[in-house]
């Protein structure tokens, strides 16, 4: 177990290094919410999900939807690490002609299950995937990652209601609760609390964890798999910008790319 945790921590660190490097190259993008999600993404892509990078369209694969699509760098980093495309290609992020669009584009990049970016919509598409896979009697599971600011969208609650109503126990979602959005702290801009009570009221099984604790992430995902008759929401307390000291808990790093010397410093911290 400890070996597995250590390896997933190393993978998360590699993902964080890619995030910082590619955003530095791109000159724009969203580091804060990409870094806060790196540990969850590391566990999903390198432990939990059944995937085959050689056959990205394999019907038996699990699905992941990045509903908070602006965190595209964390997804791209994981896909490159997993072998869907060369790590070198991360440098093309946000450039004309790149398969790595500013927000994920399923038509361009293998491994991307849904084009997302307009908040609230990806979560609903995950519900469609879960309904369709269940209809076919498959045992594939569907995972989604939501932002805490994202749950201010009305569509999230339409979707939450539907997933509970349809008892989608093949659906597990993470809520990346870093409590920062563009205009400031989430509880100041538009308070979303209390979140666990809200999701329970929508007939979800709710687990609360530290979103940077690999062991807790693994345990929560195991509990979600064992939960029958309900979708599971894993509310993960996280730190925006996690792993880069000058970005941590700084709202200004929601949507600004690091300059070359900042990339250097960040990479030194993530060595």
């Amino acid at each position, binding site marked *: 177990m400890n070996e597995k945790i250590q390896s997933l921590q190393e993978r998360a660190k590699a993902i964080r290094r890619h995030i910082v490097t590619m955003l530095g190259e791109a000159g724009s993008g969203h580091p804060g919410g990409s870094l806060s999600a790196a540990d969850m993404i590391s566990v999903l892509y390198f432990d939990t999900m059944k995937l085959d990078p050689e056959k990205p369209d394999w019907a038996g694969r699990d699905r992941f939807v990045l509903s908070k699509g602006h965190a595209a760098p964390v997804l791209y980093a994981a896909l490159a690490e997993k072998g869907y495309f060369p790590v070198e290609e991360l440098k093309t992020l946000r450039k004309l002609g790149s398969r790595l669009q500013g927000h994920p584009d399923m038509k361009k990049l293998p491994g991307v299950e849904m084009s997302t970016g307009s908040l609230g919509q990806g979560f*609903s598409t995950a519900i469609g995937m879960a*309904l369709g896979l269940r209809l076919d009697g498959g045992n594939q599971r569907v995972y989604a990652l939501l932002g805490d600011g994202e749950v201010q969208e009305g569509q999230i609650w339409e979707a939450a209601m*539907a997933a509970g109503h349809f008892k989608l126990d093949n659906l597990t979602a993470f809520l990346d609760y870093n409590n920062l959005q563009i205009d400031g702290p989430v509880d100041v801009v538009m308070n979303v609390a209390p979140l666990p009570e809200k999701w329970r009221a929508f007939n979800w099984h709710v687990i609360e964890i530290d979103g940077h604790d690999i062991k807790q992430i693994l345990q929560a995902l195991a509990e979600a798999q064992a939960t029958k008759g309900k979708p599971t929401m894993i509310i993960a307390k996280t730190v925006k910008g996690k792993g880069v000291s000058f970005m941590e808990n700084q709202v200004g790093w929601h949507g600004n790319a690091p300059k070359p010397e900042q990339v250097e410093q960040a990479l030194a911290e993530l060595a």
Partner: protein
Amino acid sequence: MTKKIATREAYGQELVRLGADNKNVVVLDADLSKSTKTHDFMKTYPDRFFNMGIAEGNLMSTAAGLATVGKIPFASTFAMFATGRAFEQIRNSICYPKLNVKIAATHAGVTVGEDGGSHQSIEDIAIMRALPGMTVFVPADAVETAACLRAAVEIQGPVYIRLGRSGVPTIHGEDFKFTPGEAVTLRQGSDVALVATGIMVSAALEAAEALATVGIQAKVVDVHTIKPLDIFAIVEAARECGAVVTAEEHSIIGGLGSAVAETLAEHHAVPLQRVGVRDTFGESGKPAELLEHFGLTSAGIVEAAKKVIAKKK
């Protein structure tokens, strides 16, 4: 005239047949299955029917998700809510990733009737045809509706099918041949071309009869596919007749009239008169009263035809 059938009725019936032919066909509705006529499918294939409640945005994105796992979702609600409320879901969840979702929207246009202007969608063609990769069908009768639906299943990608609440005469025979994107010439004529879509096709045929009695020979073109538009047929009609009238149960802004105006302006400019709702909202009334009120009648088309012929050089 044969018995009138609403295109939504034809949709409900054909949907059950499509469900029998193709196990991947699934249907989503937003608490309107009795009105959109998807309830027959629901009764026949309950496992493949998803009532999403009154939540159209979630409905469209859920349909997109179903399409990614190989389903062919038919997403139904009133045209107002499908294309209005859920526009951005149609754009970003369905069209942007080119997903195989069929949006079958009923209660389009003013023939919604008594429910009034809040429910009368007169902008949906404009909105849907602006979306890259979207196919837009506006069937004229029950036969054409069934043909559009069968074609929609064959098309890989998003399709919008505009359906109506009220009964319309059946104009096509059982031998009707439908090709997506190919307009159908229903009557030959060389004085004026009446280019119509949806329920206005039968009105155009009546108008052509009326014009013939005063010696005006009108060509009637049924444009069941607004996008991709049959540019060849439009230009040919303009060349043959030298004047065009468009007719649609929709705003004159952005719909068939606009599409034809764009085509004529670029390829073969001739005088054009648009019959449609003239930049105003609908209101309550009986469907026939409303069509009369907005001039969406054979008489309205006749008047427009005479006006446009007078403009010919």
